[in-house]
């Protein structure tokens, strides 16, 4: 589908203050300073004990500037991102709370986020949310009162204009979150994607985190358009990366995950990592794969860092959080700056 998209130049930012003045989070300071940012991820447990959150958080200590705390990810019920975020905060790591439009209407969103801010949470990722049909309560009613763009706009107005979504004034000032969104450079319509990023910036996103990037040539093309449109000047692009764990995982991501691009040479490289290791030696194969996965991830971070317009990386362990430290270390991202 090759529809022609008109030329677009990001309008100059006239109303939003510089990033460091919008929010006093550590992530905001790192991004404002121009340092290459590193974020990670903590998935809350399917239960109500704090220990799993603490254990996962500790794996990220001193490795990341902030960590996402997911919100009923893949539409599976888990401990609330706000509650888990506070536990992460207690562990000394700055949380980025994720919230989806699937589970809350504008009343619940605003009220929960007033509370989250009051309790010390400073970064927010505004998402549409995975559809509940793929989760563990497929019979649930979804909300989608507002979409992720409208969510960003609402939060920006709460912060910069001290008003609720309805226009009423927030006495004493609104919550000053650093606002993030998600971006998938590889989804379709491909031509639309840089425009969508521009729209997220216009809606109020200070930063975006991208879908896992394995296809660097395609990602470079995307970033070139983003930079040419003047979008990268107004929104910080944090690039999603993660270690592959096996050839099977690489193939699954290539073939089965909508909106994911994994080039064949990467799949072949994973395959090559276990060449000569007997199929029966499962542990040996797994170790070889994982070592290769970490190596690939480190190389990719180094290449991504050199791409114009990139502000940082979001390292996702994908149920393998132990890999994040060696990756950050290997990519020369440690120690993290103290700003």
């Amino acid at each position, binding site marked *: 589908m090759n529809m022609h998209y008109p030329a677009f130049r990001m309008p100059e930012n006239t109303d939003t203050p510089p990033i460091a003045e919008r929010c006093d989070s550590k992530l905001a300071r790192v991004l404002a300073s121009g340092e290459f940012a590193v974020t990670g991820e903590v998935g809350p447990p399917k239960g109500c004990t704090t220990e799993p959150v603490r254990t996962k958080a500790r794996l990220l200590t001193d490795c990341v500037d902030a960590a996402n705390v997911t919100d009923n990810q893949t539409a599976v019920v888990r401990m609330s991102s706000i509650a888990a975020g506070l536990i992460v905060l207690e562990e000394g790591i700055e949380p980025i709370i994720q919230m989806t439009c699937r589970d809350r209407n504008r009343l619940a969103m605003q009220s929960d986020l007033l509370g989250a801010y009051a309790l010390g949470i400073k970064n927010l990722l505004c998402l549409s949310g995975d559809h509940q049909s793929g989760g563990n309560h497929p019979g649930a009613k979804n909300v989608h009162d507002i979409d992720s763009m409208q969510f960003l706009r609402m939060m920006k107005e709460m912060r910069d204009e001290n008003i609720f979504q309805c226009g009423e004034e927030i006495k004493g000032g609104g919550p000053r979150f650093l606002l993030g969104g998600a971006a998938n450079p590889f989804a379709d*319509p491909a031509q639309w994607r840089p425009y969508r990023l521009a729209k997220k910036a216009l809606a109020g996103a200070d930063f975006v985190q991208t879908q896992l990037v394995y296809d660097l040539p395609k990602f470079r093309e995307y970033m070139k358009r983003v930079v040419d449109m003047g979008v990268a000047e107004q929104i910080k692009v944090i690039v999603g990366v993660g270690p592959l764990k096996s050839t099977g995982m690489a193939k699954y991501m290539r073939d089965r995950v909508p909106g994911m691009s994994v080039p064949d040479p990467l799949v072949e490289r994973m395959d090559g990592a276990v060449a000569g290791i007997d199929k029966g030696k499962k542990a040996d194969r797994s170790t070889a794969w994982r070592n290769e996965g970490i190596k690939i991830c480190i190389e990719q971070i180094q290449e991504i860092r050199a791409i114009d317009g990139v502000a940082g990386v979001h390292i996702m362990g994908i149920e393998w959080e132990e890999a994040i430290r060696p990756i950050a270390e290997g990519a020369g991202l440690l120690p993290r700056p103290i700003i």
Partner: protein
Amino acid sequence: MIVAEQKPLDEIKTMLEGCKKVLAVGCGTCVTVCFAGGRREVGILSASLRMSTDLDGEAIAVEETTVQRQCEEEYIAPLEADLEEYDAVLSLGCGVGVQSLARQFPGKRILPALNTKFMGFPSEHGVWEERCQGCGNCVLHITGGVCPVSRCPKQLFNGPCGGSQDGICEVDPGTECAWHTICTNQLELGLFEEMMKVQPAKDWSTSRDGGHRRIVREDIRLPEIEKA
């Protein structure tokens, strides 16, 4: 049109438990066109019920009729004449038809034989697709003639989500991504500015969220005297 499909026979039989004589009422409009509740379907369902209940040893006498529109009083009023002889009325109308019968004949058991699904049209022979949720504030002029409320599972208003691939929706591999088509249409129609505008949060008060909806048209309303 309103699109519906028949409930499973066993569910209908359970509803009819204890009945000796039943009137199956079809509707000659939407549900006829979507092959769910017209004269033909009334015939087939009635025959199946007769046979099946007979085999079970609890035979129900099922009689058949089909009116032009179940949702209008003038077409259903004549049913009243023989209604007393039936233990229940099995409506093959949409949910509106069922309720229209229930309102017309209070005290009579009116049972739904169909599940009413959506407002839509046939996209090919034998396939029906939803097209409108009656949100009460139509945006089709902005979205290039494609409804994001009924066709995008996430009801997005600002472009396709990150799961759109090859024109297919991430939620269901059998469904088009509505927003893929919206983008194409918007570009073709010169609506690029609308695409780039952050569309504001929708006012859902015109939708079911605003409470039970009714329309009052004073200009065509009958004066009180005539109503009496």
